[in-house]
């Protein structure tokens, strides 16, 4: 089995959901972003989603858009992503890369899979690539024994739910609402329905993201999902603090709050 599956199973054995935290590489700068990822691990993140910035992030809301634009202006490179993967693995969490498709394609799909594995990464989440459009990518990832994580949405049909569950390894990424990344006041949406449909289609582990920002949200989702994914609320900790140390403190607090949430202690 994969490192992702092992970690999700271990969390389940503890009677809780896993906490999955996203941060973009290079925000506010490469070294600080890696420090922030390690700080998340120390504060209780089980899995870290490492995001190589992309110039046209169509599935991201304004907070993440601004962060990745800033990172690109400062000249972040794909090599920095692999550096971050290594640091997260060394810190003891399971690293997964969350990348838009074109940077993967230009890196070379086989080389990209090889480089993620070489750095210690367990899987890759592809927000703008579906399994039917990504056969080449799935083949490359399989050849390197790398997990492929695809998204499902409230609009996903039963047929496509099946397709996506079959093509996903590690976990299936379920979005409870239609929309881009960003905090929401409530995270009810269709999360529970999407998760149960994904399970019916054969998904073993289903993690839920988009809109989660508080411990209470995390607890609510942890009641029915295998993992809770948080992104924007974490990026905001860094964005709201000009001083990196203050940003890291805010991040540790937020992650601790979310880690309590996935344990049902909101």
């Amino acid at each position: 089995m994969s490192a992702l599956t092992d970690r999700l199973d271990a969390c389940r054995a503890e009677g809780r959901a896993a906490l999955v935290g996203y941060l973009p590489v290079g925000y506010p700068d490469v070294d600080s972003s890696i420090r922030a990822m390690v700080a998340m691990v120390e504060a209780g993140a089980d899995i870290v989603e490492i995001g190589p910035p992309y110039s046209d992030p169509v599935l991201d809301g304004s907070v993440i858009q601004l962060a990745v634009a800033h990172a690109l202006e400062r000249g972040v490179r794909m090599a920095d992503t692999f550096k971050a993967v290594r640091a997260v693995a060394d810190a003891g969490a399971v690293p997964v890369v969350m990348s838009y498709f074109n940077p993967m394609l230009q890196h070379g799909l086989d080389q990209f899979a090889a480089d993620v594995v070489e750095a210690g990464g367990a899987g890759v989440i592809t927000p703008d690539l579906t399994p039917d459009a990504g056969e080449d990518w799935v083949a490359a990832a399989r050849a390197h024994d790398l997990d492929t994580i695809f998204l499902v949405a409230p609009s996903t049909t039963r047929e496509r739910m099946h397709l996506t569950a079959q093509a996903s390894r590690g976990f299936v990424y379920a979005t409870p609402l239609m929309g881009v990344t960003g905090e929401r006041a409530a995270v009810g949406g269709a999360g529970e329905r999407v998760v149960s449909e994904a399970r019916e289609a054969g998904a073993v582990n289903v993690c839920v993201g988009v809109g989660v920002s508080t411990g209470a949200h995390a607890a609510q989702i942890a009641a029915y999902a295998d993992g809770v994914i948080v992104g924007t609320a974490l990026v905001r900790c860094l964005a709201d603090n000009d001083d990196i140390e203050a940003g890291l403190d805010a991040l540790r607090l937020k992650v601790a709050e979310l880690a309590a949430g996935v344990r049902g202690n909101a």
Partner: protein
Amino acid sequence: MTEGPSAASSLQSAPGPFFGEFGGRFVPEALIAALDELTDVYDKARVDPSFEAELIRLARDYTGRPSIVTEVPRFAQHAGGARIFLKREDLNHTGSHKINNVLGQALLTKRIGKTRVIAETGAGQHGVATATAAALMDLECVIYMGEEDTERQALNVARMRLLGAEVVPVTTGTRTLRDAINEAFRDWVANVETTNYVFGTAAGPHPFPAMVRDFQRVISVEAREQMLSLGGLPHAVLACVGGGSNAIGSFDAFLDDANVRLIGCEAAGDGVETDRHAATLTGGRPGVLHGSRSYILQDKEGQTMPSHSISAGLDYPGVGPEHAWLADIGRAEYWPVTDADAMEAFRLLSRTEGILPAIESSHALAGAIKLGKELGSEATILVTLSGRGDKDVEQAARWFDMLPSEGTADAAATGGVE
């Protein structure tokens, strides 16, 4: 149905999703259901006589089709004496070819039962056309437009608002067409239950490249008949290419006429040797952007590069996948045309024929001048005049230093590059 040789060997009306290795559908899962629904409704509509009849009625009674073909002999004197004909899409209601596509997609929106349309716009032509169709068909309308373009095309922003549309300036990224498309996709993901995305060009995920081409195909279907009645097929057809909708619409009915050269004119900005251009097929590499695989202006790591053109409508770092395919198989040629050459063609057509062309279309006119000089007086050249220049008056006046006072400083900065 289709003219030309047998369907088996025909290049016309290729159905997608792939054109050779280009095209496809690279989008978030959340959009797949909407794209499937749109594909399904379109596939049914295209074979439904009542849909075709409604489109034909609107084209005739609303758009003003067929658009005429105008020979421009005084202009042609500056193009080696070749015979040059203009397909006058500039005379359509709303002033460009964009209305052809928008009426089709607005009708589809009604068929799907959605009540809101969104669209991106660069120069504002597609936004104006979409706002127009939305007013006509009682649809709520939101137009995304890069902030830089809202400044370059302030008059079109006012036109859209007068038509009842909401115009949202997009302040992210390069603040141009590409960012407007990103923002429209974000809106669509969030509002897909009520909203249809009226995509403006023959790019994006399937079914847009094939569907937009089908709605623009009327340009070449009419023009081919008009040229035949004027004495024969042209030696070449030219059109400007940003995303490439007027060009693919101008090419399609000629694709099987092997002796007709098809030439797309891309915006070369300051020149393709500089980093300030939008000539994607000349200077780009294959990749995935905005939902399909095609040529893209991008760096080594796959980050989209900023494009530049004096023409907001061509200022786009991607291009429709069918053009990438036609370039690959050698059926069409793509020529880079600089800002300076396009503006010279703009000046020439205005002064010799009394027709103010859109700056976008002026790129195709510049291509015709070059081709006419190569081919000489025996040649017959058809140019699609995709839009009129009314929206560009201020920008052109600044370029030629014709503004009275406050424009003078700007003119010195942007004018006379060559």
